[in-house]
């Protein structure tokens, strides 16, 4: 099989799909041209992510990694969510094929982008370099694929 049972489970029954109309932070990463876009919504209270939802345009692993990433940050503090690595998402999904690893990077970036948006909206200082530059090559980790 191409994907692990866990990946297929999160693909078939994605957790936290949808949008949060009054979200405190929204992050969107990826590029339709490259075939995957993730959008993540977060609700934050007292520095804790109280709710999270996502929408994804992409392949099976893009949907599964988005779903898993939302599970991993729900109820966590912003700092804990910021510490989420793509590797942790991959491990939680029992692995991904090598050429699909970029999806997990995208999931990590989506979480960071949503938190960055929250910081921006609430005038909270942060280190710019930690966040998605909007350059697909970072996530795809191979051929640069610019507009």
């Amino acid at each position, binding site marked *: 099989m191409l994907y692990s049972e866990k990946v*297929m489970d999160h*693909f*078939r029954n*994605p957790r936290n*799909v*949808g*949008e949060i109309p009054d979200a405190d932070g929204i992050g*969107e990463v990826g590029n*339709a*041209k*490259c*075939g*995957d*876009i*993730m*959008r993540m919504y977060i609700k934050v209270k007292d520095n804790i992510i109280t709710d999270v939802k996502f*929408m*994804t*345009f*992409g*392949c*099976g*692993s*893009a*949907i599964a990694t988005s779903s898993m990433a939302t599970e991993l940050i729900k109820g966590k503090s912003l700092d804990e969510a910021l510490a989420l690595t793509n590797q942790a998402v991959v491990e939680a999904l029992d692995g991904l094929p090598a*050429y*699909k690893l970029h999806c997990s990077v995208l999931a990590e970036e989506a979480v960071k982008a949503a938190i960055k948006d929250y910081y921006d909206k609430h005038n909270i200082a942060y280190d710019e370099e930690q966040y998605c530059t909007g350059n697909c090559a970072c996530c*795809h980790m*191979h*051929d640069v*694929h610019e507009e």
Partner: protein
Amino acid sequence: MIYLDNAGTTKVSKKVKQAMLPFFDEDYGNASSLYTFGQRAKEQLENARAMVAKCLNAQPREIYFTSGGSESDNWAINAAAQIGARQNKKHIISTTFEHHAVLHTLKKLESQGFEVTYLPVHENGIVRLDELKQAMRLDTCLVTIMFANNEIGTIQPIAEIGKLCREKKILFHTDAVQATGHVAIDVVAMNIDMLSMSSHKFHGPKGVGALYVRQGIALSNLIEGGAQERGKRAGTENVAGIYGMAVALQDAVAEMKEVAARETKLRDKLFTELGKIPHSAINGDRKHRLPNNFNMCFEGIEGESLLLLLDDAGVCASSGSACTSGSLDPSHVLLAIGRPHEVAHGSLRLTLSKYTTEDEIDYVIKKVPEIVDYLRKMSPVWDELQKGERKYAL
């Protein structure tokens, strides 16, 4: 299971399987051996050659058995390039949407000093004769244009291309892997110099194909080591496979009209019904295409997810999305007909066979819109399209 990936490969028919069986443990002699037992295999091998030749209106001595379409394409193009190089002609004309067996061979020749012109195939997926004519030069040694495209099924004006090439004394090769056994082919009437075919695309076994080379063309050797295939491709022949292919092709040609009519009817039903999905479009010319080929794009979704959900619903299908190709770019064929990247990612190819039933098609007509709708609901691209933040391409 509903199998709708017949451009990928087909089921070996019962008749073909039966025809192949004796060669495994009864008539298993080596066709190169002198004794009667071996010669019996040789006889069947030559029968197969005559059967294949007849289906193309070729002569038996013009048929070379190979391992399949990719080998035939490689062999034909490299041989034509060698002929060209000897006459200092190092220009080749092809198209942007050939199979990679052709494109990668051409890439290699480019690195060896050949120049290749890739003709555009336009929105309908068909080359234009005037553009071909314009591209022809005094140093053009080969025109290689596929008979019918493997993804969108569009059929090229092969007879007209052949006539033009013959007039200009340029060799003409066609990759007919998808066309053989599905549409009528006459290498003489169509002025085809070389033609590639593959057995498993018409209910024959995998690992077998053929290359037709018109008599008089100096085909270079592919494999050294024995007298098989007139000394040009050494190695003990796969008589079972070759005979299976011949029987399969004979059947395909005999049933062609009837099967094509059935497939066209079912295929058109798919186009009509799935065309009702908003913001969808047919890829390639609707009329000038293989009778069994359906290919559409659905905006706002990605093909691999669609295939996985179809698989869950018991349907085997194919897509030109980047994720199914294992690269970042979607299908070069869909890009060649002008589909934007983001739209090309959302393509679906369904390819029918003589075994496809109307019930199966009706099931697919019910399932596909449900899945497209489901995926669109979670797609941020679709959301942006709906909110007017992004422009519809379809």
